[in-house]
């Protein structure tokens, strides 16, 4: 492999002059705002000399205000860019204007999965595949589903879905499925494993998340951009959140649709060639990625050290260090993802992200990073550390309010008022400007009534996000403290659909503590003074209402009926999305088996179905067993047959399903056993199995392959 370090000015790398000017503009504005706020607070606090609590308050305030200013200027610069008459000279889309030539580069589309909803993953792959086929460039793309699933049922379901989808699409040799026996280093290890095995075959790799969706046209355009801009190492799209059904999900996707483009334009402005990689919906130049972006473990053990969890930021920094630009592609349509449906699921995801970002603390001072890569790490750490800082800020404010000193100078009072209004402006002005921009330009919706509903939606989302923010602050603070205390996080599959929302018990158990905190804090605030109670009431109301808020946010009453929080994707779904919804709806209509059988459907298939058993054994790597291990497997298999799958531990089930000889013989042993030798589960399964599915492989997928078995079984 040749040296990956390109000359500094290869196309795609923003010219240094422009990049520096933009960065200087952004950071000067942000730092000036921070300085102004800090100065006003200093005047206010130092009126009667400094107390330790006031010094601490100021120290907490500075990073918080920096963060606030950063968001403010990012949004305003974004709105300015959106309305600027002339084109952005750094716009990558310009480099492929009028280019419809055939692509010569080969690209792998990889989908790492871990115990995900099998139907969603494979139906998503289907619509992406079909969308690519429509572009006429499908021959240059291969698909890889890279599984680390450790639930046996999921594993079998993935295998059957792979086979069936390949059969329906005629895509053997285009869509590949690979399951790792041991999920070493989680997602980044999964991707590295792909790179080591097949990376040399491809020039680019497009990384999907399990819930990602991309249009073929966008993927082809991304490949063309990479071809025209050899200085770009990673090209990240802006994935829009779609397909939400709960209030929280729809709120997030509405906010992202309305405010997201301006923020993305702003971030793109100041990040330039040192943007971040978000782990999915991005295209990567494989040669430098393989050579330069392998992740070493961090010093010490988890939670701060060990395997790098949030690998994407680090890979972006390594790519930039290797001399390649990491760029954000301004995308309005074509790149989609799904989000967590409830507040509890959001917090679970945030806990994982929090640990990943906190780990980056190690990397802040590492050698050789580009300055902006350091800033990206710093912003990532700050995004979570800001929560405990805010919490401490509020506690100190309470203490200072309870032990007041006289602020009788007019200058001090004016400084306090000015700081208050400045802060209100920093929080709300970006939203106001973006909504006004929408009112005047109709960027999202052309018809006036819809624009007005966007205004109503924006007011409603402001209220709800104001209620949510303190709850998030409390939990993020706890996450940070727990991580510092050495409590890591486990790797859990992300929940992406509501599946019944949040029940009261779960909400009370999760948010009961914060409600209690709200009660106590309210009493203290009331005791301090009524003025202080009013000042801190937005925080306390949020604490007090946390339980009902979690219920409401997780409910399916999402305002859709009233036209609230509409997004362009809901009104006019892109083809990939509408096709996916149709296919998922078709799968939902399939026959449901008894719950016990349904829960172990994959296991039942691999043991009973001759074709699924054959598929599984064919895909397994054959290993030579020792006498001891054969005896152990035999013993588990006996219990499996006589007592049913529920009698075995997950690792025992995994052991027998991972062994070719055992799994092949299980099939015949089960069918050979008399009724009295079988666990009730297997008796029922044998009776039900042939009734359950018309085809062993279509249970989890829509039937778009003109399968005639179903019609024949109807007469059977």
């Amino acid at each position, binding site marked *: 492999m040749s040296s990956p370090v390109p000359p500094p000015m290869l196309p795609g790398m923003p010219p240094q002059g422009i990049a520096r000017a933009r960065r200087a503009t952004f950071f000067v504005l942000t730092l000036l705002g921070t300085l102004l706020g800090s100065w006003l607070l200093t005047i206010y606090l130092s009126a009667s000399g400094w107390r330790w609590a006031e010094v601490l308050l100021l120290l907490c305030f500075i990073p918080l205000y920096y963060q606030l200013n950063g968001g403010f200027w990012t949004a305003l610069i974004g709105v300015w860019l959106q309305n600027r008459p002339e084109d952005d000279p750094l716009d990558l889309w310009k480099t492929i204007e009028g280019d419809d030539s055939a692509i010569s580069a080969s690209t792998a589309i990889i989908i790492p999965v871990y115990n995900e909803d099998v139907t969603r993953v494979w139906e998503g792959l289907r619509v992406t595949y079909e969308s690519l086929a429509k572009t006429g460039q499908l021959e240059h793309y291969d698909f890889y589903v890279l599984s680390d699933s450790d639930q046996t049922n999921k594993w079998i379901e993935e295998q059957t879905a792979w086979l069936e989808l390949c059969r329906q699409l005629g895509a053997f040799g285009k869509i590949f499925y690979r399951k790792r026996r041991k999920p070493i280093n989680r997602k980044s290890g999964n991707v590295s494993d792909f790179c080591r095995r097949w990376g040399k075959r491809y020039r680019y790799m497009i990384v999907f998340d399990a819930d990602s969706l991309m249009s073929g046209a966008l993927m082809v355009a991304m490949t063309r951009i990479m071809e025209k801009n050899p200085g770009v190492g990673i090209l990240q799209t802006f994935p829009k959140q779609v397909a939400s059904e709960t209030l929280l999900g729809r709120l997030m996707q509405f906010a992202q649709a309305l405010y997201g483009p301006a923020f993305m334009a702003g971030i793109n402005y100041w990040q330039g060639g040192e943007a971040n990689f978000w782990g999915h919906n991005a295209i990567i130049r494989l040669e430098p990625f393989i050579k330069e972006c392998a992740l*070493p473990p961090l010093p010490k053990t988890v939670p701060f050290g060990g395997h790098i969890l949030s690998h994407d930021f680090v890979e972006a920094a390594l790519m930039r260090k290797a001399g390649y630009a990491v760029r954000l592609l301004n995308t309005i349509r074509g790149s989609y993802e799904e989000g967590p449906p409830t507040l509890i699921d959001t917090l679970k995801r945030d806990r994982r992200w929090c640990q990943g970002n906190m780990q980056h603390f190690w990397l802040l001072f590492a050698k050789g990073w580009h300055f902006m890569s350091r800033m990206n790490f710093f912003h990532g750490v700050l995004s979570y550390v800001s929560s405990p800082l805010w919490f401490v800020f509020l506690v100190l404010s309470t203490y200072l309010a309870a032990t007041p000193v006289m602020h009788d100078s007019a200058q001090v009072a004016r400084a306090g008022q000015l700081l208050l209004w400045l802060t209100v402006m920093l929080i709300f002005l970006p939203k106001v400007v973006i909504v006004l921009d929408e009112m005047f330009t109709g960027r999202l919706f052309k018809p006036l009534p819809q624009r007005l509903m966007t205004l109503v939606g924006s007011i409603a989302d402001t209220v709800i996000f104001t209620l949510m923010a303190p709850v998030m602050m409390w939990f993020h603070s706890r996450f940070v403290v727990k991580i510092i205390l050495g409590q890591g996080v486990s790797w859990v599959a992300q929940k992406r659909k509501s599946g019944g929302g949040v029940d009261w018990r779960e909400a009370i158990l999760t948010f009961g503590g914060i409600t209690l905190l709200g009660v106590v804090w309210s009493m203290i605030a009331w005791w301090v003074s009524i003025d202080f109670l009013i000042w801190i009431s937005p925080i306390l109301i949020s604490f007090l209402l946390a339980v009902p808020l979690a219920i409401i946010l997780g409910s399916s009453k999402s305002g859709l009926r009233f036209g609230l929080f509409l997004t362009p994707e809901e009104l006019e779904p892109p083809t990939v999305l509408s096709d996916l919804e149709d296919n998922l709806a078709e799968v939902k209509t399939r026959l449901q088996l008894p719950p016990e059988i349904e829960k172990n459907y994959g296991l039942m298939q691999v043991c009973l179905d001759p074709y699924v058993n054959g598929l599984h054994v064919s895909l397994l790597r054959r290993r030579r067993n020792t006498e001891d291990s054969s005896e152990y497997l035999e013993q588990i298999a006996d219990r499996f047959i006589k007592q049913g799958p529920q009698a075995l531990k997950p690792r025992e089930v995994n052991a027998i399903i991972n062994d070719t000889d055992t799994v092949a013989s299980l099939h015949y042993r089960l069918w050979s056993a008399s009724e009295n030798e079988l666990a009730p589960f297997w008796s029922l399964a044998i009776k039900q199995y042939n009734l359950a599915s018309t*085809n062993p492989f279509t249970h989890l997928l829509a039937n778009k392959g003109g399968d005639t078995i179903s019609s*024949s079984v109807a007469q059977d």
Partner: protein
Amino acid sequence: MEALNIQFAPATGTEEEWNEAYARLADYFRSYRLHNRIRRTQLILETLRRAALAHAREPQKKPTAHAIEQARAMMQHWLRSIYSDMQMTPAQIEASGKLGFYLAGGSERWPQFFLDENNPPEEMAEAMRLAVRTSGPRLQVSKMTPRDIDLGLTEVAENTFDRLAKEQWARYVILAVFVLLVVGYVYSLLR
């Protein structure tokens, strides 16, 4: 396969046991998605006939077990006759061969030739072989070796000094911050 013998009078085993074996075989062949009832009945009877002979030799084993064992043996013979020219172990033939039949659409297109090792149509055999030949992409192994990241804090100081030496603007920024701090301090003293 030998000519079908409708007469079924096993010398050993009870009627109940053979009924259970019949029901199990019916379910088993249905699991191959073999929806041609006539063929399925033929196969059940032939398998039972063979199972009855086996049971007479080994009566301690249940008829159901004999029946499935015979069905497996018939399957192995049949698949071996189709995949004999491919480089596969018996276990691979058994696993992949069944799958080949499914992928070739065998249960719909050639149900009457399922387990018929004497007269398999060449078209069916070729379709089954073709289905098994399709495999994943050949590995092209590349090295992806993690490199240590130097996390030393001293490097930051070094980088900063290097930068200060090279970048004039950085020196002015430091100077301006320093002046601002001094002015601020003086201001606070004079208030």
